């Protein structure tokens, strides 16, 4: 099988664009990714388009109506918060399989404001606040408190994740916010679902990101190997059976499974990874994944944040983009936006937040329900 490479990748600055349509927002990133490698829409042999909010709305085709209707095959993808990464992976798989030589993957989302999850009932009575909470801040708070019960992780340690990621975002011009949030401010912000305060919840924003993926032969033919990023591993996992599945959506076992398979596919271990963009939809979530991704033992996750090992300049920087907590979390775009972030570091083009000497990076997203997608990326030259 051929190797597959990212040759063009970009994202728009995340924000709120109520006057634009979803296809218009997606089209912006698609054009930016094409410009990044100097190719045109006519070069693309297929489009894989990730979007959640209009999953039945043919977003990919409507996007091509904005930027070029070549008649190429379009696959529209929805997979909760793993939507963008899943679209990217489908594009990667089509190149690996030899079906196409050059394809486009796009992730796009337009979000409302407010709480996600825990919706009303169609029949009977609403269960929210009667049988616990199905809101996302509460569900991820319960997942964090499970870590607390096993390893003694504290409210303060969870809050430090948010301090770190907000600090990182001050160095990222494409993040929704660039604002420092000291520990006291994070801990004293409005409590949403203990232990997650408002500043420990990801930001609902609109956004898009896109990538152009090529076979090795095509990269050489186009002369694009200089800035190319090799996809060393692409793995998707669903949640294997766990005893509390029906009451606690499981983000741990699918991450552990996907990580193990990704390291095997890449022929690498966690010690080889220079930076990670992982799914910090809530501050409590980030800490779970240090151990799940094997960068430390589960019981050392709190210490990792205390000691700054996961901060820019530390042993293994995590979410130097600002993460979902501050860069923002447009659900369908997130999985490609974090591939953009890691690729930018591997190209040594990340400016003030550059992870020095980064050669290999890992991206991780979780779609609750659950889907975990992990990609291991390497600088090609």
């Amino acid at each position: 099988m051929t190797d597959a490479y990212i040759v063009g990748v970009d994202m728009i600055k995340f924000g709120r664009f109520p006057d634009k349509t979803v296809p218009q927002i997606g089209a912006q990133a698609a054009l930016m990714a094409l410009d990044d490698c100097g190719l045109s829409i006519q070069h693309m042999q297929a489009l894989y388009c990730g979007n959640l909010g209009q999953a039945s709305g043919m977003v990919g085709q409507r996007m091509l109506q904005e930027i070029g209707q070549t008649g190429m095959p379009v696959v529209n993808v929805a997979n909760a918060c793993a939507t963008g990464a899943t679209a990217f992976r489908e594009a990667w798989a089509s190149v690996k399989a030899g079906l196409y030589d050059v394809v486009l993957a796009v992730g796009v989302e337009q979000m409302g404001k407010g709480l996600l999850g825990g919706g009303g009932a169609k029949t009977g009575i609403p269960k929210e606040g009667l049988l616990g909470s199905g809101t996302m801040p509460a569900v991820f708070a319960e997942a964090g408190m499970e870590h607390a019960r096993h390893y003694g992780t504290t409210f303060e340690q969870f809050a430090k994740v948010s301090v770190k990621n907000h600090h990182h975002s001050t160095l990222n011009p494409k993040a929704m916010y660039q604002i420092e949030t000291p520990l006291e401010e994070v801990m004293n912000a409005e409590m949403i679902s203990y232990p997650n305060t408002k500043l420990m919840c990801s930001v609902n924003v609109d956004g898009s990101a896109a990538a152009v993926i090529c076979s090795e032969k095509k990269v050489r033919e186009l002369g694009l190997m200089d800035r190319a990023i090799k996809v060393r591993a692409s793995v998707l996992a669903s949640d294997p059976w766990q005893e509390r599945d029906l009451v606690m959506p499981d983000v741990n076992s699918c991450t552990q499974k996907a990580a193990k398979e990704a390291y095997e596919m890449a022929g690498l271990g966690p010690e080889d990874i220079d930076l990670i963009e992982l799914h910090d939809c809530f501050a409590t979530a980030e800490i779970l994944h240090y151990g799940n991704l094997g960068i430390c033992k589960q019981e050392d996750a709190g210490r990792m944040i205390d000691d700054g090992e996961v901060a820019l300049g530390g042993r293994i920087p995590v979410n130097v983009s600002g993460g979902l907590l501050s860069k923002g979390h447009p659900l369908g775009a997130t999985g490609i936006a974090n591939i953009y972030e890691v690729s930018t570091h591997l190209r040594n083009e990340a400016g003030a937040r550059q992870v020095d000497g980064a050669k290999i990076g890992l991206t991780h997203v979780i779609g609750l329900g659950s889907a975990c997608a992990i990609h291991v990326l390497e600088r090609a030259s």
Partner: protein
Amino acid sequence: MSNQPLPAVPYLKIPEDGSPYLEGLKCGQCGSTFLGERNVCSKCGARDQMSPVTLPNSGKLYSYSIVYRSFPGIDVPYISAIVDLDDGTAIKGNLINVEPDPENIAFDMPVDVIFDDALGRKDADGNSYLSYFFQPKT
């Protein structure tokens, strides 16, 4: 409209004579217990091996969150709790009759399952409902 309260969830059973109880489905092949109707075991894949079991009315607190922000009309704060019942079945609900403060909530604290009106909530036809709650074991 029913004269008697209806169960808030299908796995809450209200016998004509006797006390309400929670019912699980146990897989005859691997022994896993589930809440809610199913014919196939999602752990081992066995088909048509499910048989109903009465779940115990006590357990221990596994994890929780104190919810301060919810949807309009829902009283906050409240404790959203994951409880492991004595037979190992995991179930989610509100932990009541304890001050919603982490100081007062301990992992593994023993809790009882109690049955009460569903916080006054009624459906479109005016039916009232019976629900279950957890409270610290007395």
